[in-house]
């Protein structure tokens, strides 16, 4: 009885120490990536190549999801608002929910599963097939050559993807409520413009997406670099990237929202 209890307490302690150690390891790796980012800016071609795979190829899923999220928001918002006779406020509803929350968060979640998992799998496989070790042998720093360009490509593309998501969402909401249902186009835009503030809503949404970009790509490159060099290890690391970065996005979103929109 006592033995089992002690074992349980020991396992809690073990996991705590393991977690703290892992967090410290990740932070050290993050700082290392930042320290060795000089190369990616001197040879910007490396970043551009990654921007293509991380950003441009994510466009389709971002555009389509943004459109549908906006259309659903428009439909649901109209459905509720028309009960109170204020269906012209549907533009405000769509724009505010997209710009403040859904744009950055959903775009970041999609980005984590579309691009973050790919980054982890690529780096993990390079490690498993000892390409990274081979680079080290040739005196090419794998962190500067492989990890940092991917990190910066993710950080740069995330705010753009979130903004494109929001714009497509607003367009989708416009399509459903104005074109199909017949809400007045003038009041759709004017209500939106008078209630969406540049600094409070749009700038804060932009800052959020920057934070998410850093968080998602930092987790993705760390999990890839840290993965056990086996097939199983790479698959586990890819799963962990998606799970950890999704949780990180949602947690960060709460903290950032609490800071940004307090007292409004």
């Amino acid at each position, binding site marked *: 009885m006592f033995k089992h209890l002690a074992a349980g307490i020991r396992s809690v302690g073990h996991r705590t120490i393991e977690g703290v150690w892992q967090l410290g390891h990740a932070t050290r790796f993050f700082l290392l990536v930042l320290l060795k980012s000089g190369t990616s800016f001197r040879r910007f*071609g490396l970043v*551009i*190549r990654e*921007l*293509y795979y991380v*950003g*441009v190829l994510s*466009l389709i899923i971002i555009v389509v999801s943004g459109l549908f999220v906006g259309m659903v928001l428009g439909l649901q918002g109209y459905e509720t608002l028309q009960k*109170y006779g*204020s269906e012209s406020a549907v533009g405000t509803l769509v*724009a505010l929910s997209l*710009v403040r929350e859904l744009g950055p968060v959903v775009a970041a979640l999609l980005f984590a599963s579309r691009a973050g998992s790919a980054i982890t799998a690529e780096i993990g496989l390079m490690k498993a097939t000892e390409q990274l070790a081979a680079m080290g042998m040739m005196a090419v720093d794998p962190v500067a050559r492989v990890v940092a360009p991917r990190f910066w490509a993710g950080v740069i*593309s995330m*705010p*753009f*993807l979130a*903004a*494109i998501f*929001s*714009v497509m969402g*607003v367009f989708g909401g416009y399509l459903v409520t104005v074109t199909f249902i017949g809400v007045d186009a003038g009041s759709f*835009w004017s209500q*939106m*413009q*008078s209630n*969406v*503030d*540049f*600094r409070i*809503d*749009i700038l804060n949404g*932009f800052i959020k997406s920057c934070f998410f970009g850093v968080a998602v790509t930092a987790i993705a490159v760390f999990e890839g670099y840290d993965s056990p060099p086996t097939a199983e290890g790479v698959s586990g690391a890819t799963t962990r990237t998606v799970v950890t970065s999704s949780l990180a996005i949602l947690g960060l979103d709460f903290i950032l929202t609490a800071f940004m929109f307090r007292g409004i």
Partner: protein
Amino acid sequence: MQRRILDFWVGLFVMTGIAALMFLSLKVGNLDTYGIADSYVIKGNFDNIGGLKTRAPVKSSGVVVGRVADIQFSTSTYDAIVTMNIDSRYQFPKDTFASILTAGLLGEQYIGLAAGGDEVMLKEGDTIMKTNSAMVLEEMIGRFLFDKASEDNDF
């Protein structure tokens, strides 16, 4: 993939992203009307501002002519001092009447300016003399009940 094609697509991506940000700030947000280019400041003392917030619109005949810049409580007169930024295209007479109104039944509160007949116009930093406080629902109901009770007592 060839470098030139890669550059093209990435350039297109970045330009789309910047265009999206511009669209958000100009069309969805109100950056173009945010800072009224040329404005002057006037003040008004209100007994009760209700739910008025900073950045609430200041309207005259329904047209937005400015925004509420600041709301403070004065401990010398025990009322609220509302500072408004008014577009300098619009000049108002000195005896303009400012009241706190509500857009719709549940809408946001704004300041309505009703121009008076004075020849002298309000200048930068002037204070509006005639103000009308916000309607507070509880006070109205309370007054109604009080009137009702006193009516009943008469009989």
